C-alpha cells in the first residue's frame, strides 16, 4: 500500500488508559494528503478517544502525533488547530447564546485586541459556505439552528481556520439520509481542494460510500487496514466484530388485538421539543412496531406518552380497549407497560444505587419488596440476583453500585427489570445504543422473544438498519407527525428517508 501522496498526519504507538480500561492500545497509522480515511469500529472500540488525543482534549499515556512532519505537543487543542487539524465533534461544541459568526470567531483573534472584525468574518464565512455547499445563515443564533445546520457550523469553524486535516466524529448519526448525501458532497469538495479527512463511523455502508481506505479498530487496537475498493460490507463487519455477524431474523409476526391505541392524539410541545401532532397508532400484541426518524422529531413525546410521563391534550387514548382518563407513570406500570428508557444513565438507573436498589425501582412500593411501608431487602436482593443470573448481567454482585457496570450490563439489568414483570406493552427506546455486538444481539433477541410471547413492542431507534431488521410494521416521525404504518419489507431505506425529511406527510394527511 505505498501511497505516493505526502503524509500529512502520523500517529505512532498511541496508548490511553482510563483506570483499568485500555481505550487505545499502541495505535498507529498515517493519513495522506487528499485522502478520506475511515476509522471504523464498534462503540467503545476507542475511535473517539483516539481522535480526542489527536486533537488535544486528552493526553495520551504514550505515543506521538505528527502533523506535516512536526510533532504535536500533547494536550493542547490550540496547538492542533494551529497545525491545521480541525475537528467536528460528535457532540457539538457550540455556544447556543451566540450567533454562527460569533461561534466561528471564538479564539481566532488575540483576546486583548479590541474589535471582533465581524464584517470581514461574515464575508469569509459566506465565501466558504458557497465553496463547500454549507448553507447556513451567519447571523442566526445557534439556538435556532437544526442539528444539520449546527454540523455545518462545526465544519465551517474548521475551514475558517484553514484546516488541512478534517476529523469528523460520527457525523451522520444525527442526519437524515438526504443530509448525509449533502455532507458527502461537501467532503468531496474538501478533498478536491487538497484537504485530508478522517471519517469516524460504525455504519458500514457510509464507510463504503465515502472512504478511500479503512482502518478498523477493535477493543482499542488496530484490527485491520484495507483499501475500500478491495473490500465489502460483510468483510468489514467481520473485521469490526472479530466474528461472523448475525443479523436478527425474526419469524413472521402473528399480530393480535391492539393493546394501546392512539386516535388523533396530540401532546403539547416541551421547550424546543415538538409534541405529538394528531398521531394515530395501534400497538398490537405479538408485533414489534418500529419508530424511525431523526432524533428530536417527537419520538421523545411519544415515549413519554407511552410510559406515562405525559398525558394527551387532545384525541382518544385507549389502553387494553378502555379509554384512559388518568394517566401517570404509576398508571402505566399498572397497565403493564414495561419501559426501557432512552438514556439508561439519566432516567433508567440511579448511578450511586446498588443493583438491588435499581432492580426494584419500579416495584419497591409493592409486596414482596415492601410491606406496610418497610422495605424487604431480602426479597429485593433475591429479585436482583434472579435478573443478574437470567439476563447474564456481569457485575461484582447485587450490592455493587450500578455506576461500575458497562453500558451493556446496565442495559441488561434494565431490560430484566422491565421484562420480569411480564409486561403487556414494552417501550424500547434506543435499546441497543452504545452496546457491543454481544449485548446488542442479546437485547434484540429478548425483545423478539417478548413479542413472540404476546407483548406489544414499540421500538424507537435512530438506526434505520435496526428498525428494518426488527420491526413488523414501521412508522416514521417528523416534527411530531406520524406516518402511516408500513409492513415489513415494503419500504427501502431511501423511501423512509424521504419521510424522515418531512416529505410525504402532506399527501397522507
Amino acid at each position, binding site marked *: 500500500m505505498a501511497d505516493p501522496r505526502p503524509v500529512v498526519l502520523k500517529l505512532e504507538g498511541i496508548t490511553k488508559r482510563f483506570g483499568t480500561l485500555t481505550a487505545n492500545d499502541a495505535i498507529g497509522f498515517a493519513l495522506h494528503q487528499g485522502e478520506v480515511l475511515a476509522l471504523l469500529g464498534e462503540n467503545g472500540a476507542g475511535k473517539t478517544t483516539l481522535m480526542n488525543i489527536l486533537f488535544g482534549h486528552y493526553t495520551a499515556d504514550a505515543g506521538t502525533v505528527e502533523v506535516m512532519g512536526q510533532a504535536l505537543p500533547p494536550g*493542547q487543542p490550540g496547538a492542533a488547530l494551529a497545525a491545521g487539524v480541525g475537528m467536528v465533534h460528535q457532540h457539538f461544541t457550540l455556544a447556543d447564546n451566540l450567533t454562527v459568526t460569533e461561534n466561528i470567531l471564538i*479564539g*481566532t483573534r488575540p483576546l486583548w485586541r479590541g474589535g*471582533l472584525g465581524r464584517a470581514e468574518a461574515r464575508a469569509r464565512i459566506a465565501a466558504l459556505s458557497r465553496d463547500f455547499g454549507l448553507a447556513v445563515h451567519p447571523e442566526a443564533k445557534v439556538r435556532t439552528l437544526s442539528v444539520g445546520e449546527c454540523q455545518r457550523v462545526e465544519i465551517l469553524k474548521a475551514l475558517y481556520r484553514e484546516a488541512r486535516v478534517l476529523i469528523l466524529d460520527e457525523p451522520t448519526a444525527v442526519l437524515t439520509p438526504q443530509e448525509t448525501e449533502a455532507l458527502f458532497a461537501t467532503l468531496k469538495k474538501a478533498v478536491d481542494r487538497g484537504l485530508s479527512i478522517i471519517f469516524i463511523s460504525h455504519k458500514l455502508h457510509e464507510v463504503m460510500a465515502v472512504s478511500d481506505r479503512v482502518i478498523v479498530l477493535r477493543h482499542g487496537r488496530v484490527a485491520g487496514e484495507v483499501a475500500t475498493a478491495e473490500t465489502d460490507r460483510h468483510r468489514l463487519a467481520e473485521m469490526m466484530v472479530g466474528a461472523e455477524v448475525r443479523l436478527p431474523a425474526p419469524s413472521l409476526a402473528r399480530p393480535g388485538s391492539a393493546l394501546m391505541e392512539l386516535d388523533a392524539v396530540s401532546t403539547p410541545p416541551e421547550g424546543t421539543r415538538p409534541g405529538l401532532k394528531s398521531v394515530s397508532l395501534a400497538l398490537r400484541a405479538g408485533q414489534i412496531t418500529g419508530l424511525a426518524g431523526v432524533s428530536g422529531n417527537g419520538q421523545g413525546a411519544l415515549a413519554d406518552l407511552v410510559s406515562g410521563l405525559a398525558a394527551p391534550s387532545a384525541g382518544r387514548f385507549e389502553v387494553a380497549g378502555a379509554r384512559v382518563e388518568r394517566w401517570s407513570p404509576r398508571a402505566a406500570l399498572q397497565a403493564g407497560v414495561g419501559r426501557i428508557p432512552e438514556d439508561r444513565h439519566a432516567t433508567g438507573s440511579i448511578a450511586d444505587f446498588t443493583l438491588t436498589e435499581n432492580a426494584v425501582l419500579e416495584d419497591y412500593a409493592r409486596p414482596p419488596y415492601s410491606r406496610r411501608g418497610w422495605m424487604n431487602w431480602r426479597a429485593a436482593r433475591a429479585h436482583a440476583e434472579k435478573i443478574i443470573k437470567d439476563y447474564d448481567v456481569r457485575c461484582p454482585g447485587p450490592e455493587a453500585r450500578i455506576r461500575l457496570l458497562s453500558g451493556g450490563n446496565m442495559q441488561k439489568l434494565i431490560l430484566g427489570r422491565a421484562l420480569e414483570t411480564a409486561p403487556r406493552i414494552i417501550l424500547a427506546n434506543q435499546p441497543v445504543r452504545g452496546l457491543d455486538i454481544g449485548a446488542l444481539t442479546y437485547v434484540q433477541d429478548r425483545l423478539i422473544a417478548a413479542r413472540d410471547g404476546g407483548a406489544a413492542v414499540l421500538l424507537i431507534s435512530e438506526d434505520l438498519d435496526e428498525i428494518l431488521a426488527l420491526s413488523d410494521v414501521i412508522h416514521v416521525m417528523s416534527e411530531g407527525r406520524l406516518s402511516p404504518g408500513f409492513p415489513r419489507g415494503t419500504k427501502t431505506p431511501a423511501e423512509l428517508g424521504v419521510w424522515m425529511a418531512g416529505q410525504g406527510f402532506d399527501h397522507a394527511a
Partner: protein
Amino acid sequence: MEILDILLSASFWAAVLRIASPLIFATMGELICERAGVLNLGIEGIMVAGAFAGWMAVYAGLGLWPGLLVALLTGMAFGALHGLLTVPFGLSQHVVGLGITLLATSSAYYAYRLSLPEVTSPPRIEPFQPVHIPGLSDLPFFGEALFSQTALTYLAFACVIAVALILYRTPLGLALRAAGENPSAVEAQGLSVTAIRIGAVMAGSGLMAVGGAFLTMSAFSSFFFEMVNGRGWICIALVVFGAWRPGKALIGALLFAGFDALQIRLQQTPLGADIPYQVFLMVPYVLSILALVLMSRRAEVPAALMTPYNRGDR
C-alpha cells in the same frame, strides 16, 4: 403627595446615584463571573474586605486612588482563591462562595481589631469629594441631581460601558460568554476554559471590592461592622433582574437605589410617624422581589452556570 415632592427634589436624585454606585460596581463584577459560568457567592464578604482594605490603606497613609487599587487587589486575591477552588478543583460553587464570604468578612474584622485594638469609634479618613464639572454641575436642578457626585460614581457608570463593550465587542468577551454557555466550545477553539474562568472571577471580585470600598471611601469616611449589610446579595438578584446584561442590570441597580432613597425620605413624612420604620426598610426589598418576578421570566440563563468543566471527562 409627599412622594411627588420627594421625586421632584434634586437631593433625591443625587441620593439615588450615590446609593446605586456600590451596587453597580458589585453587580458588574457578579455579572462577569456568572457570564463565564461561575456563581460568586463570595460577593458579600469580598465587598466587606474591599471596604476595609481601601479605607485602611488610606488611613495608613496612602492616597485615595492607590487606596482604591489596594481594595481592587484585595478583591482579586479572594477571587483567585474562589476561582482556584471552583474552576480547576471543580468544588461546589455555593459552598465555596459562602465560605469566601465568611472568610473575607472575618478576615476584615480581624484585621480591623489587630490594627486598631484600642479605639471605640473607628477613625475617619478624608474621602473622595464631589467633582465640580464646569458647566454641568452649575445647571439648575440637574447640576445638583446628576452632577454633584464623587469621581467613583462616574467611574461606576463608565464601568458599565466598559463591561458591555468588552462582553460584546471584543474577542475576550466572546470567549467569556461562550465559557458560560458551553465551555467545550471554548476548548475546541484552542482556548483555556480554566484561564478564562479564573480571570473572570478575579476581575469580577476586584469590581466587587471596589463596590465595597465606595462605602468607606466615598459614601462614608469610616469602616463599620455590618456596613455592607446584604448589598452583595442584592447584587446577585440584580444580575438575574438584568437577565445577565450590563445595561438592564444598571437599570435594576438604579431602581433599587430609587426605592431605597424613597423609603428613607418617607420615614420623615407624617406617614413615618404612624408606621414602624422597619416597614419602610422593607420596601426596596419587597419591590425588588416583585420586579424580579416580573422581569426575569424569560431571561436566558448562561447554560453552563454553576457547572464545573473537567477536561477529558468521561
